[in-house]
């Protein structure tokens, strides 16, 4: 099967620092890829090249067999690469459907096409449909987003991406700020996306989360890809030792407790 995303030898330098060094990454339809690594390992830089925020200094990106030169996030989004950052980019003063349609509001004629109003009814109906499709239960669509829980907000951000035809979803620490129940719901949603054919790249510090959803785990350290494992064929111990480097583990004799299933560590 052809990968949906094929990143080959991506490199990004900032001055003298090589943040990402010749990293290759394939993402296939119907899988969740966990991207892990310690702070400064280059995860975010890699993701930002795929989502068009940074332009690589070397290597190339193919998306759906097309070679891509993404100049900005909007171009990435146009072809279907959606990134959800921790801050979710929701306008908390607006309701759910306003957020799903943020910046892409549907209009209807009021005085011909000269004066147009927003077609709120249409936007609400569409929002309800996409939320239902993802199995998301969000309280009244008229609720201001700030009154929703962290997980529900996350769900709104995901629903927005899906509504606008995301074909690859990139999620940066989606569970970091959430309580346990909410974390589970978001992971559920990640699985739902995968099952509906939208592959997900998920960045997380939380080993439990990674093992709960990822089919494949890619480990980065100091700008390099140091390992790639099928989730079913590895252990948290192995992943952590790849993350921190085998020599550290050897020196200490044990896996540092703090890194084992480190929960909510700062990004």
């Amino acid at each position, binding site marked *: 099967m052809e990968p949906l995303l094929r990143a080959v030898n991506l490199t990004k330098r900032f001055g003298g620092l090589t943040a990402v060094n010749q990293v290759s990454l394939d993402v296939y339809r119907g899988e969740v890829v966990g991207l892990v690594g310690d702070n400064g390992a280059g995860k975010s830089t890699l993701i930002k090249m795929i989502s068009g925020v940074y332009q690589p200094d070397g290597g190339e990106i193919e998306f759906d067999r097309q070679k891509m030169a993404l100049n900005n996030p909007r171009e990435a989004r146009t072809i279907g690469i959606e990134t959800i950052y921790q801050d979710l*980019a929701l306008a908390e003063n607006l309701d759910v459907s306003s957020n799903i349609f943020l*910046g*892409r509001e549907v209009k209807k004629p009021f005085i011909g096409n000269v004066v147009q*109003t927003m077609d709120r009814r249409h936007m609400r109906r569409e929002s309800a449909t996409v939320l239902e499709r993802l199995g998301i239960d969000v309280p009244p669509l008229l609720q201001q987003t700030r009154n929703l*829980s962290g997980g529900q907000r996350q769900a709104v951000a995901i629903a927005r991406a899906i509504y606008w035809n995301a074909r690859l979803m990139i999620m940066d620490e989606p569970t970091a700020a959430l*309580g346990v129940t909410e974390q589970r719901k978001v992971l559920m949603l990640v699985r739902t996306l995968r099952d509906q054919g939208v592959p997900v790249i998920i960045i997380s510090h939380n080993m439990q989360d990674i093992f709960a959803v990822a089919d494949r785990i890619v480990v980065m350290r100091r700008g390099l890809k140091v390992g790639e494992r099928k989730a079913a064929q590895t252990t948290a111990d192995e992943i952590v030792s790849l993350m921190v480097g085998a020599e550290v583990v050897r020196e200490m004799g044990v896996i540092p407790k703090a890194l084992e299933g480190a929960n909510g560590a700062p990004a």
Partner: protein
Amino acid sequence: MTTKEYEESSSSATTEPAAPTRTGLETLEMLRKVWAWAFLVLLIVFFTIAAKQLNDTNFLSARSIQGILVYATQIVLVGLGQTLVIVTAGIDLSVGWTLGLASVVAAMVMQALYASNVNPVLTIAAGAAAGLAVSLIPGWLNGWLVAKVKVPPFIGTLGMGGVVTGAAFLLSGGYPIAQQPPYLGQLGNGYLLYIWPGHGVNFFSPPDNLASEQLRELIPIMPNVVFITIFVVLACWFILSQTQFGQHVYAIGGNFEAAVRSGIPVRRTLIWIYTLCGLLSGIAGIVWAARFTSGAANAGETTTLTAVAAVVIGGASLFGGEGTIGGTLVGSLIIAIIQFGLVILGVVPFWQYVAVGTVVILAVIVDQLGRTLGK
């Protein structure tokens, strides 16, 4: 997880940071929404009783109600633009001075055309057009400074206020621009309807050749400037609450970064907002010129404060994202009633400043409290 499980887990207590229950939040938001209305009613009751007791006047007579409304138009017109700006988490401190500049320019044009016997409609239209056109300039510059040069709105518009004041004084030479056509005053102080009980109804002007006691029998209905203001209010309400532009105003104030990332043309929208704010101050300037048949650089000296007060009292948040035209309307009425009521009670007028200043500070405190409690 099934939908049912979702419902269960969302209703059960989770380890989420304790958010107030939904009903608690709703009550809080209800309070934030209705307190201005409640305050308005309280004020009316207070002044009605006080005016009756202290100097036996009827605060709620048709004449004084219309007087309050006429007085409120200036606050409302300037407050409308200020609402748009404050919803984006900005502020425009040049509005009062733009009002003055527009009144000066409009008055100068009308004075000149009147002196050369141009026809009345053309004179007023040209004066109004000139006043409105000039008001676009500081508005656009404010927007440009805020959106493109990233000057903080507070300081950018304060500076612009200084420039505009100077320009208005330079143009007018420091004097009011009087010698206006008489029909200007009729427009600014006239009514839409004049009911002469037992005789009939006249539009726009009282019946000709009435004796003074007959004039006293006349019941004037709907001041022209109130009528004009209603139209402007409806237009602004429509823009802010029904259009995509209005939605973008809220989005910018709610989460600037998200607005940018979602592809909203944030900078262009901001420039439009400040320009519109200038234009609305300009309209207020024309109305001022018509009411006082004059133009004066300092016509709107106190209006900046009263307009900001009206918007904030009306529930807009200086943090951005919140605020409605209806709220601003209520806020304007509250200010107008306080000022008018104090006059009727015979309080030294300087106390009005103290009252308005105090009320605006209180309103901001209520807003902040609401936020901390809501978090």
